[in-house]
């Protein structure tokens, strides 16, 4: 099957420029999938422990939090934006939820709702600043990154919050299929990916997100309310970071003010490795799911092979550069 895919790409590469174009597009969609398959085959041949349902479930569990953030990041990047505040907003969400529930003794469900609202509020703030003041998303979210980071540490008093009531840790609990334990957090992450895929690929709002990222002037002149699209995108991303916060609490069992400090870059990595263009308008959630899994599988596989952890970063770095280079090259062909 792999051979057939490669052969098809080669065949499409022959002939005139139109076919080169078809090849460029095929690479941007099939490339990440191929990388995922090749990496899986590689690790399967290297260690017996890789291709087991328990291990694969573990990989999904490990990437669920970054994966959910990456879904929000995908929305933002599709509009040719970027969200550096993602991890800090999530960390703020975990502190709001745990602190309200434990220190203030609020009803856990109310705590969760307020935590989600806080993250959504940050997303809304990002959206309003990007559209209202027309500031570059990079700068806006760099600002809100620092604000959320500061608030997290002020509100938490630098303390990790433990002894959480059950509803807060629910998404860390598992159920079994056969003998394999699967966390509810993993299921939630996949569910969110599915919902977002539907919204992007099948709804009118989804088309408007692509159009806004691809050519904002054309979209606006065609009657797309691009500001409203951007505000909705950043706000939805904020909500997703809030949900990621809840899944993170479930996974670690505590509210940790130090959490998520690299989650913004990890999520951008997953999105880019998944083939979504940083220039906006191209890519999608399926790519991001694959990108998240690629990064997760490399970390997990290298770990199982006993490779020192620092090499995982090396590999991730190479993956990002390759992914962006492919995107850039295919753009040049299209131009």
């Amino acid at each position: 099957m792999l051979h057939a895919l490669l052969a098809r790409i080669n065949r499409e590469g022959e002939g005139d420029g139109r076919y080169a174009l078809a090849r460029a597009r095929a690479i941007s969609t099939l490339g990440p999938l191929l990388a995922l398959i090749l990496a899986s085959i590689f690790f399967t041949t290297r260690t017996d422990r890789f291709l087991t349902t328990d291990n694969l479930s573990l990989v999904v569990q490990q990437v669920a939090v970054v994966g959910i953030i990456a879904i929000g990041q995908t929305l933002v990047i599709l509009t040719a934006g970027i969200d550096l505040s993602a991890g800090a907003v999530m960390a703020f969400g975990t502190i709001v939820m745990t602190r309200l529930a434990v220190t203030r003794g609020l009803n856990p469900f109310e705590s969760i709702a307020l935590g989600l609202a806080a993250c959504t509020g940050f997303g809304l703030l990002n959206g309003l600043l990007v559209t209202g003041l027309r500031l570059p998303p990079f700068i806006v979210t760099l600002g809100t990154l620092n604000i959320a980071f500061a608030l997290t540490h002020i509100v938490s008093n630098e303390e990790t919050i433990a002894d959480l009531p059950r509803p807060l840790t629910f998404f860390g609990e598992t159920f079994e299929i056969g003998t394999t334990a699967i966390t509810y957090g993993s299921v939630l992450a996949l569910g969110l990916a599915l919902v977002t895929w539907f919204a992007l690929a099948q709804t009118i709002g989804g088309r408007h997100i692509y159009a806004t990222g691809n050519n904002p002037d054309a979209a606006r002149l065609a009657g797309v309310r691009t500001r409203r699209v951007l505000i909705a995108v950043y706000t939805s991303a904020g909500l997703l970071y809030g949900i990621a916060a809840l899944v993170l609490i479930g996974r670690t069992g505590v509210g940790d003010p130090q959490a998520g400090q690299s989650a913004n870059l990890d999520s951008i990595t997953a999105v880019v490795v998944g083939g979504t263009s940083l220039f906006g308008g191209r890519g999608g959630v399926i790519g991001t799911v694959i990108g998240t899994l690629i990064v997760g599988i490399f970390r997990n596989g290298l770990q199982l092979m006993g490779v020192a952890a620092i090499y995982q970063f090396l590999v991730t770095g190479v993956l990002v550069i390759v992914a962006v280079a492919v995107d850039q090259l295919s753009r040049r062909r299209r131009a």
Partner: protein
Amino acid sequence: MSAVETIVPVLEARQLVKRYGQVVALAGADFDLRPKEILAVIGDNGAGKSTLIKALSGAVIPDEGDILLNGVPMHFHAPLDARRQGIETVYQDLALAPALNIAENLFLGRELRRRGVLGLVFRMADRQRMIRESRKYIADLKIRVGSLTQAVETLSGGQRQGVAVARAAAFASRVVIMDEPTAALGVKESGQVLELIREVRTHGVPVVLISHNMPQVFEIADRVHIMRLGRRVATITPQTHTMAEAVALMTGAVSAAGVS
């Protein structure tokens, strides 16, 4: 002459004024577009043709003056207002989203929804219906493209302009405005776009064509509206005037009285 003047213009402007600080872009400009005609608008750079067109398409709000559609005064605050009244504009170069396909571009901003709950609650787009209807619009204007689901970026310049014109023609019930539609195209492709413009007129919708290309204007236009210093200095026809006379009017070498 008196028989012609009783025709109610489809789109009319009276004494439009638009100032940008000290710069006067429109200094009391008149405009009239008659049913089923191709009206070319020409003028030197800075003569105000672009501001005039923007006022007519809702992109610019004039400081003074009236805009009338079929004799009814209009107040456009945004391009969407003009479009709701059946005035569609084809912009020079920023008309399409290259990564989206032809059908998606045709319906951008006006997507059709699925019927029932899927459309109402989930705002699900009805792709099949949009593709079917796109096929009709494309065929109506005799535009040749491969698949309607191919991305616009895979099309040639002429085909892209064809898609942009098809979109305008599909939704324009009253007026199509085209801003330099052939500026970026080769000779052959320009010819195809001119054919498209005639095709739009054949469907009964009058066309306003902004162009720098004199031979093209004289080839296709029924009447030519000439702008100079923010005013309409004359409206001529290719039958009664030569290109040299049009240029003379445009540059102010001759007054309107001098050539007519």
